[in-house]
């Protein structure tokens, strides 16, 4: 909704007309010290941990340290205009954000305030940013796939609805690209998405928002933004705010996907706050509760049982490693919290293998139960063949005298690599993936040159779309690959090979 000036002036006039003079009475303390986004407040003996406090300039703060005779407050906004001796009021509220369908297509800050110049948000309701994760009895096992549209992921490290899958890798290895592709691929699948950008450059986020707009993905997406220039307090609460927005839809029975980009910067922001609040530093100067910081956030991802509406919240946290070191503090923490990880390698990326997924280190602990049966059948052997190829490829570098079986395996492995390569922002429907993996699995790509494999994929999918749509419809309907269907696919492949001169 766009608010026009007439409306605002009408509102202000009505406010003035019905203006009643009621002094505000509440418990108050005084600012003793302020600086670096942190204030120390004397008094306020009734303050709760995490409660919102109001500063005289209208800025809110969050009470984090309740000490014996003063409290440590993080200021959620600018600390300009707050001075020593200012009164600080208790509000009796915890931090909350607007939630509901009016958030779709919007870009908001960590407090849920719109920053996209599309007018104010008329929220259905407000939700506290810190909530307790669903209990054991409210959950059920993850058994439905969340299609990322990326062949390498959907085949080798499938993600289920309600799962938490970590995307980890060095800078510039395509971590965000995977998350954005996954959001784009949810188009028409009735999955709502929330993208939380923490501590990123505003220019990067602007580019991402542009892509989401161009691909039409913004219609079902909310972007929660705390850029590198925002105070550490806002970067700290951003993922919780995003999670609250997503959670609301989950409890209403929807399927929701949330991306936290990225949690290493979140931990850094929390470290800054903790050190300024004089909490004791631990390993890598992170505070003692940095594990709980992420575990309580990621535990909120869930697959709810039918009694609770059957909604799901899938989380894709992102962690940036330094020089491929996944044994640093934050990466090991988040790896142990999540149900698997997608490990991206700079070497693979530079070799032109994109997405640069390392299938050896990547794993999905939900695995096959989150795949459609057709995909499960085809992906099973793929993993083993791929691992064998990796081993042989390393070995074969030492000698040229290879037997026919080894050469065949190497050729097949190269074709697997080639098929799994996929350009950015081009997610592929699961039916198309099944068709292509079928061709790969049954050795139909053997005779095709490596450089022509992507052309074959394009021609093959195009042919099925124009001449044999029923094949895709059947896969979509049954999710399975019957013998009868396999025969039909074989026939189509033969036809394509002949027509377009592959062999």
């Amino acid at each position: 909704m766009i608010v026009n000036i007439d409306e605002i002036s009408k509102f202000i006039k009505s406010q003035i007309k019905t203006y009643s003079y009621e002094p505000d009475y509440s418990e108050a303390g005084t600012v003793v010290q302020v600086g670096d986004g942190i204030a120390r407040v004397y008094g306020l003996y009734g303050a709760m941990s995490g409660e919102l406090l109001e500063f005289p300039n209208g800025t809110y703060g969050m009470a984090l340290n309740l000490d014996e005779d003063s409290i440590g407050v993080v200021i959620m906004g600018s600390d300009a205009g707050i001075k020593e001796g200012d009164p600080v009021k208790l509000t009796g509220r915890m931090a909350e954000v607007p939630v509901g369908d009016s958030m779709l297509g919007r870009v908001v800050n960590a407090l849920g305030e719109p920053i996209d110049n599309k007018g104010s948000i008329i929220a259905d309701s407000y939700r506290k940013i810190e909530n307790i994760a669903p209990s054991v009895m409210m959950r059920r096992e993850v058994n439905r796939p969340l299609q990322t549209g990326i062949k390498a992921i959907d085949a080798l490290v499938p993600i289920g609805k309600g799962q938490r899958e970590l995307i980890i890798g060095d800078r510039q290895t395509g971590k965000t690209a995977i998350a954005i592709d996954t959001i784009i691929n949810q188009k028409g699948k009735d999955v709502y998405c929330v993208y939380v950008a923490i501590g990123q450059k505003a220019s990067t986020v602007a580019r991402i928002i542009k892509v989401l707009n161009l691909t039409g993905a913004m219609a079902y997406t909310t972007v929660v933004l705390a850029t590198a220039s925002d105070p550490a307090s806002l970067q700290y609460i951003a993922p919780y705010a995003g999670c609250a927005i997503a959670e609301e839809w989950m409890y209403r029975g929807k399927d929701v996907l949330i991306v936290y980009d990225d949690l290493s910067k979140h931990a850094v922001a929390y470290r800054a706050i903790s050190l300024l609040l004089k909490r004791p530093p631990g390993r890598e100067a992170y505070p003692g509760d940095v594990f709980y910081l992420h575990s309580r956030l990621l535990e909120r991802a869930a697959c709810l049982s039918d009694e609770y509406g059957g909604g799901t919240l899938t989380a894709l946290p992102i962690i940036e490693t330094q020089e491929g070191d996944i044994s640093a503090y934050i990466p090991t923490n988040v790896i142990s919290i999540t149900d698997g990880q997608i490990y991206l390698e700079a070497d693979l990326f530079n070799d032109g293998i994109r997405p640069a997924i390392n299938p050896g280190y990547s794993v999905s602990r939900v695995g096959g139960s989150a795949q459609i049966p057709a995909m499960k059948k085809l992906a099973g052997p793929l993993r083993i063949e791929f691992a064998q190829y990796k081993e042989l490829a390393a070995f074969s570098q030492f000698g040229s005298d290879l037997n026919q079986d080894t050469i065949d395996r190497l050729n097949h492995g190269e074709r697997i690599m080639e098929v799994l390569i996929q350009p950015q922002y081009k997610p592929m429907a699961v039916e198309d993936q099944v068709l292509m993996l079928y061709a790969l699995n049954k050795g139909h790509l053997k005779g095709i040159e490596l450089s022509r494999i992507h052309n074959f994929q394009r021609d093959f999918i195009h042919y099925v779309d124009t001449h044999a749509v029923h094949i895709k419809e059947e896969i979509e309907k049954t999710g399975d690959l019957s013998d009868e269907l396999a025969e039909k696919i074989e026939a189509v492949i033969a036809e394509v090979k002949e027509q377009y001169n592959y062999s």
Partner: protein
Amino acid sequence: MAKLRNSYSDVLLEISEKRGTLEKDKEQVMVVRDTLESDEVQSFLANPHIPVPVKEELFQNAFSHELAGHVKGFLSYMVGKKREKLIIPALTEYIDSANRRSGRIEAKVVSARALTKEQIESIRRILARQTSLEIMIENKVDPDVIGGFYILMDGHIFDCTVRTELNRMKERLKRGMQ
């Protein structure tokens, strides 16, 4: 720290009450607090290299004739125990408690412009009626409140400033004009 501060002030208060010199002691304590509050004196007292007798000498020279024995005793006890930093907080707490016992309370009124005597008197009258305590008003001027005033009293605030009204209106506009 807060507990320690309170127990020192409680003990001192008990002694004053037993001797029946609460009012007189309070005045003395206020003088001591105001004198010791300067940064120079504080750093002198907190310096661990200055021996205790020298610090005690300062008290002797400064307030030798005016202070009651137990107040002097309190000061040398604190210095002897190396709790110099707690002297000011304990004395402040003592003054507050003594005021409360004698039915008095301090209130800070902050306004955009200095209030007239009549205005302060009327605020004092209303507050006294509401709390049935004797109110001692301190008026401060802070142009940032834009208009109106707020009263800080006993850890609570009565806020009737234009600044707060405007903030509230801003919040309601942001939340969608309900």
